[in-house]
């Protein structure tokens, strides 16, 4: 009796169109008993879609249970390595399921569902994304893999964003009109980096269900269960306490205070506000503006106008950057319940982006006024500032996806360029500093 369900299952499996399930895959499945329950599960998901086959689904489910229970060693075991056969099968199921779903039933957001995996797409998709996608379909033990921890921590702390934040802080330090002190510089950078890790970890800890529902964020460690919430909070504390302490004791209390303030603003103001009001963007812009201010205060120990100018650059830059990014994510934001300008006040969104892009030109002009840079800085930065303003204007006028994307990508290189130009045009006190920071700058045309 226990043989029949097995063959019945595999027999049903064989009935699926060949185009969807490769012959090799089929043979491997049939041959390998320990995998057949996975295929049965996928099959069940397929049959579940069609209400008319309700009885068949129940029947299969029952038979599958009998089969699994009767064969002693057929329980699911953890498979640490990816099994491409079973996983490829799951992706094939997606395409089957999607075909079944052609009937206009009301389905979840198609943006969430992975694109069908046919042979053409496999080569195009980058390996890392594909591996992550396939791995996401397995049941896994909720246990910490110590080998993966560095990668997990990197993703938890949004390491690339943290690196950018540390860069802006370092730029703030370098722009300060004091002699360069390597120890303070390093302590300020490390402290800022640790604070940023903390803030990002807590942000992810708060946002697990929302992240699960958005394409951009669904592979985060907490969403995937790679670590527990307690672990994430412990990591955040383990970064935050040393980070802020380092800034307070190793640099100066003002910088420590700014670091703690930034963590608070990001985790307790920005993150909840994202779902309550559009003012979250302004708060987020302040959060982005504080690191260069911290860099400056680390160097000078006081909150000068120069620090505020650098903060002003970051503050204004945030708007073209974020508004353009959020323009193309409106659907995800709406479904996730995020209140962003791009969704609720689209006109304001475009206006603000344009306003602040043009404002960057004005801020650059303030550089020589405040004795932060020489007068060449507004001239040299004019081309890139005009370009981003031009793109912001096009975004304002047309407000379509293309222009939004162009503005966003421009903002990605605009900020580093601006900071670099500011560094090269720094009001020189000690010429060795400039040489150390920007060795490859060509001489400026006058």
């Amino acid at each position, binding site marked *: 009796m226990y043989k029949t369900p097995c063959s019945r299952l595999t027999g049903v499996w064989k009935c699926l169109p060949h185009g969807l399930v490769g012959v090799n895959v089929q043979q491997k499945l049939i041959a390998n008993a320990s995998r057949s329950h996975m295929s049965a599960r996928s099959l*069940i998901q397929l049959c579940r879609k069609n209400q008319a086959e309700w009885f068949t689904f129940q029947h299969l489910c029952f038979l599958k249970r009998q089969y699994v229970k009767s064969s002693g060693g057929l329980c699911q*075991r953890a498979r640490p390595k990816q099994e491409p056969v079973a996983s490829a099968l799951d992706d094939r199921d997606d395409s089957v399921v999607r075909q079944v779903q052609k009937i206009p*039933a009301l389905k979840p957001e198609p943006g969430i569902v992975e694109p069908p995996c046919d042979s053409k797409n496999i080569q195009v998709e980058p390996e890392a994304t594909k591996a992550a996608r396939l791995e996401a379909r397995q049941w896994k033990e*909720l246990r910490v893999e110590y080998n993966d921890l560095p990668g997990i921590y990197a993703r938890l702390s949004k390491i690339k964003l943290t690196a950018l934040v540390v860069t802006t802080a370092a730029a703030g330090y370098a722009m300060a009109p004091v002699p360069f002190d390597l120890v303070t510089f390093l302590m300020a950078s490390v402290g800022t980096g640790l604070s940023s890790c903390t803030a990002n970890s807590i942000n992810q800890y708060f946002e697990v269900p929302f992240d699960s529902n958005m394409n951009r964020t*669904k592979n985060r460690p907490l*969403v*995937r269960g790679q670590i527990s919430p307690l672990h994430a909070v412990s990591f955040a504390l383990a970064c935050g306490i040393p980070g802020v302490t380092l800034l307070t004791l190793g640099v100066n209390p003002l910088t420590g205070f700014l670091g703690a303030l930034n963590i608070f603003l990001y985790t307790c103001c920005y993150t909840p506000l994202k779902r309550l009001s559009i003012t979250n963007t302004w708060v987020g812009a302040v959060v982005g503006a504080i690191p260069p201010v911290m860099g400056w205060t680390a160097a000078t120990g006081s909150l000068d106008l120069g620090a505020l100018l650098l903060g002003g650059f970051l503050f204004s830059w945030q708007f073209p950057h974020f508004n353009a990014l959020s323009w193309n994510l409106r659907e995800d934001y709406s*479904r996730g319940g995020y209140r962003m300008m791009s969704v609720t006040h689209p006109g304001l969104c475009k206006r603000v982006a344009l306003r602040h892009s043009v404002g960057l030109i004005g801020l650059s002009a303030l550089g020589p006024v405040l004795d932060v840079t020489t007068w060449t800085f507004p001239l040299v930065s004019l081309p890139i500032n005009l370009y981003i303003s031009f793109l912001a204007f096009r975004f304002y006028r047309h407000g379509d*996806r293309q222009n939004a994307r162009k503005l966003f990508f421009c903002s990605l290189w605009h900020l580093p360029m601006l900071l670099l130009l500011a560094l090269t045009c720094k009001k020189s006190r000690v010429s060795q500093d400039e040489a150390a920071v920007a060795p490859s700058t060509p001489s400026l045309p006058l």
Partner: protein
Amino acid sequence: MNVRTFNCLLFRSLRPCYTHAPALLRSPCRGHRQSTSQPPKHAKQTERSEFSPAASSKYDWIGPPDRLSNLRPIIYHIPENETPLERKLRHLRQETEDWNHEFWTNQNFTFSKEKEEYMRLQLAAKGLSERDDDGRKRNLSSEEMAVFYKHFLDKNITRHASYNREWYRRNFTITLLMARVALQNTWRTLTGREKGKTT
């Protein structure tokens, strides 16, 4: 495999339960959750894959994202000598998972439904059919859809705000409980070791 567990399984296989207790773990069959597993407003049955971790596994298991709520179901391991605190934690986590699942299933479902409705109305207002000559579904422009997205957000603001508050509260409570359980386990291990040393 005893008859009672088999019957339990059979029962569960015949009615779609959307979370699954492993057959081989001692469990009260999570009776408290069955009442919430069939929200009448859901047109589709929620799917949770039928999965059994190995009996020797001492860990929780996390599954692929659910197709409706996009949240990942977790099967909790019940240890041999589960303390009341651990049981409280497990129940809270399970309940929160169910509550989250229900909210997001509803959210995604409502969003899709209203989006389809909106598109249908817009196309009808323009005098167009739902599908074009090639048989593909027509799409509206981003600007037209933006009106719907804004409307959806505004309509649901109170519901979202209350979900937020509840979610934050639950998240904090769960994490605090986890911390207490971890401390309790550490204490038990330490005192257990000391007892072992003295005897």
